[in-house]
């Protein structure tokens, strides 16, 4: 019996002790009419060897293309140390540190994680993580609505350059509490959002402004002006940020004259594999004033009865297992193991190393952008503006065909923007990180050129 250690003798002896004849008798409180028959659609069990063969064959089906997709999930080099450490049984098979004395490893690690996230965001406090960037943004919105004492509004304003998948998830979550997300239109000729566009929203009551930096398009927004504008309007500022970029860019805590109030984002770039979208983790940091509105676990440093330092879950009075219907969120588990990996990753890279990752990605992106600009039939939108490691190109040929043909050649060239931003035309979002070599970039440009002339001739 896989994973069940009982021998026949064990079972007999245990049943005798309990005083029943059979295991089945232990289920005699279940109304017999409800008892189910054998599972019909579950196949018979396999050995580990057979299972691994089956899943290996499937995994191999998904291999083989060079990937230039980003849009919220980024391929970075993951040092071997990261998962060697995170996969240690003591991290991987422990649970939420309810017994602090028996969980100092996890607790100290999360405290260190919180410290690192505040270092990156320039804000005062961090929690122990949320599920992912999108649901994290929803929590940030709920938090801002609770926290903004100046505003009674249940509306928040989002730039159109915030990840559309994030905005969608936020809506799906917060509309249940009658909170509304209003979105600023994207100008197809200027992917940056100048504050002038926001004039239309002045004087209205919004609990918060959502700003993503770098934006979904990879562009850098003028976050200082945007932050000051929002604060002047009595809004809180929620910064949606890429943690890698924070090694290079102004941290949200320093945006404008007083800094963003809440920063949120997805931790995936910090040592987590693409892995079909998860597990990643959402991070959330805020100014000290809002700490009691924070959702999720928070770890604090304290002392034990001998005065030695130690770590423990704290501010639990915000949480569902204590406050139940009055909790700041229903969140229970966080993404502990993902955070473990990210903490190891950030320790390895350090501020300077992470900056190098950001810069190398940025430089590769600049290179590809330059290569593609030179191709007939390709328009790099806002060719000269500052981007981080993504940019938007418009193709002469229908972009879905371009993507299809590039994939036939073993390259996933970018994310089709048509559904989310029809105003951009035949556009796709291209991402380049430090993992790509010069040859990879040349190959991309070469293939794209070939595909475009092929499509021209059809």
């Amino acid at each position, binding site marked *: 019996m896989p*994973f*069940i250690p*009982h021998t026949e003798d064990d079972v007999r002896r*245990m049943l005798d002790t309990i005083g029943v004849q059979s295991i089945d008798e*232990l289920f005699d*409180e279940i*109304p017999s009419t*409800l008892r189910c028959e*054998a599972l019909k659609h*579950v196949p018979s*069990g396999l050995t*580990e060897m057979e299972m*691994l063969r089956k*899943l290996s064959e499937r995994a191999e*089906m*998904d291999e083989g293309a060079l990937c230039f997709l980003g849009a*919220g999930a980024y391929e970075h080099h993951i040092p071997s140390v990261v998962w060697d450490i995170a996969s240690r*049984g003591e991290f*991987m098979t422990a649970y*939420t540190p309810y017994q*602090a*004395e*028996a*969980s100092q*490893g996890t607790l100290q690690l*999360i405290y260190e994680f*919180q*410290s690192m996230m*505040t270092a990156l965001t320039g804000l*005062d406090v961090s929690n*122990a993580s949320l*599920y*992912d960037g*999108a649901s994290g943004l929803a929590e940030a919105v709920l938090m801002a609505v609770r926290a903004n004492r100046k505003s009674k509004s249940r509306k928040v304003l989002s730039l159109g350059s915030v990840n559309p998948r*994030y905005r969608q998830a936020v809506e*799906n979550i917060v509309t*249940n509490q009658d909170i509304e997300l209003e979105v600023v239109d994207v100008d197809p000729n200027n992917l940056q959002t100048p504050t002038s566009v926001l004039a239309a929203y002045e004087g209205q009551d919004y609990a918060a402004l959502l700003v993503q930096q770098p934006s979904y398009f990879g562009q850098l927004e003028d976050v200082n002006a945007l932050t000051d504008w929002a604060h002047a309007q009595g809004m809180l500022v929620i910064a949606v940020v890429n943690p890698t970029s924070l090694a290079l*860019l*102004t941290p949200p805590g320093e945006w404008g004259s007083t800094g963003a109030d809440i920063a949120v984002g997805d931790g995936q770039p910090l040592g987590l594999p693409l892995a*079909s*979208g998860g*597990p990643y*983790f959402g991070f959330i940091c805020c100014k000290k004033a809002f700490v009691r509105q924070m959702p999720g676990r928070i770890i604090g440093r304290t002392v034990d009865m001998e005065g030695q330092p130690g770590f423990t879950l*704290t501010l639990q009075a915000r949480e*569902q*297992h204590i*406050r139940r*219907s009055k909790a700041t969120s229903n969140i229970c*588990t966080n993404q502990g193991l*993902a955070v473990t990996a990210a903490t190891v990753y950030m320790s390895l890279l*350090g501020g300077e*190393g992470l900056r*190098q990752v950001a*810069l*190398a990605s*940025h430089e590769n992106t*600049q290179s590809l952008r330059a290569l593609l600009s030179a191709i007939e039939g390709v328009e790099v939108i806002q060719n000269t503006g*500052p981007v981080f490691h993504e940019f938007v190109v418009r193709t002469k040929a229908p972009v879905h065909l371009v993507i299809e043909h590039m*994939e036939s050649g073993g390259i*996933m060239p970018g994310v089709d923007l048509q559904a989310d931003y029809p105003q951009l035309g035949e556009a796709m979002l291209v991402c380049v990180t430090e993992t790509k070599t010069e040859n990879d970039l040349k190959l991309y440009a070469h293939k794209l050129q070939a595909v475009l002339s092929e499509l021209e001739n059809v």
Partner: protein
Amino acid sequence: MLIFERGKSGRRATAQAPKNRPDASTIPDSLLRKAAAPLPEVSELQVVRHFTNLSRKNFSIDTQFYPLGSCTMKYNPRGAHKAASLPGFLRRHPLASDRFSQGFLSCVYDLQEILKDVTGMAGVSLAPMAGAQGEFAGVAMIKAYHQKRGDDARQEILVPSAAHGTNPATAVMCGYKVRELPVKDDGDVDIDALRESVGPQTAGIMLTNPSTCGVFERQIKEIAQIVHDAGGLLYYDGANLNAILGKVRPGDMGFDVMHMNLHKTFATPHGGGGPGSGPVAVNERLLPFLPTPIAGREDVGGEASYCWLDKEALPDTIGALSAFMGNAGIVLRAYAYAVLLGAEGLVRVGEFATLNANYMAKLMEQAGFKLAYPGRRATHEFIVTMSPQVKSFDVNAMDFAKRLLDYGYHAPTTYFPLLVPECLLIEPTETESPDEIEGFVLAMTKILEEAQNTPELVKAAPYNLPVRRLDDVRAARELDLAYRREA
């Protein structure tokens, strides 16, 4: 010592940082960070040593018996971890086209089918990223259902007092009011109170069955009838699904919607607090509302072909709750686990979890501990109340819990459910041998003797761990939530 304190300005794990070209940045200064982010500055060896040693300060399933009630801390098969870590799965971008996704999609689809069978439900979505998000999705579907029918009066969710804190918190997240239902002394819900509570304001009820009292709710059919008659829906909190796997199905009990905790029932690693995965399953009635994305299958010329179903295919969906597809890697681990166990193995899970819990409960009783529900069968877990020990020796449940750590056992869940005073909720799981169970009971017996003879010893435990008992009050009063480098 913190990893920051091991650092020194300029130190780094150099092999890990890419080389930069001559700076090609076009980023204006106003958007650039002024000073390097104050992350740790340590060598690769220092990182390895620091975190290896940190890990050694944890209790875990791989090192200890961990009978944490309601958390199903069973063995996490390493094979499932390996399967989910295959390069093809790890490297797949979440937005990869179907062409480069058939492997992953087929796993998602197959697990959906398995979970439908296991739960007796008509549809499954694996998108929710944790039990609590599954609950959210479930209650949001209940809300969407009533809204679609124009039934706007239903503003209340019923929750038994023994419920997990996530239940009322979720109802509120979905904009509902919560009404608590009392639980009787035998652990079953007070049916009369239920009858009085339902009405046109009732959106639904959230139930865990077996309940958090460690017993099976025997009146479930009656409850379903009452709630359905009142026009409400039944939500099944799948936290305790491990107890009844293959024995009774939530769909057959009359539930309309439920979530599962894959990290519990399907043995994926708990990771020090996550990630989990909280798929939802629904009956026909709620099928249109399932959260996206869902894997669909068509047969193209005899060959199966898989694709994502989202908003276009499911216009009434409550939508996506994450940027991509939830905790895909956890889904893969759960699928691998299901493939390993198969139909016959999944049935054994419930059987042996129940056998272990009942055996352990009997041994605890024989050792002089008081069961909270002595007349009932234990399910996969059971409750001991330490009230007698508090009265006799002034040693409480937490003291026992802390002292257990000294004996090398993780403590059971303490002080939950709230309605049982001084309780320990104990869940051995099916993957533990009777030897471990007997060892635990022996330790409890010794602690009971200690409580009798040297209560101070127990009250000041633990002694053998990296730290002594921690000052939680100070932690909350003098907040120290992040390291700040000394100037």
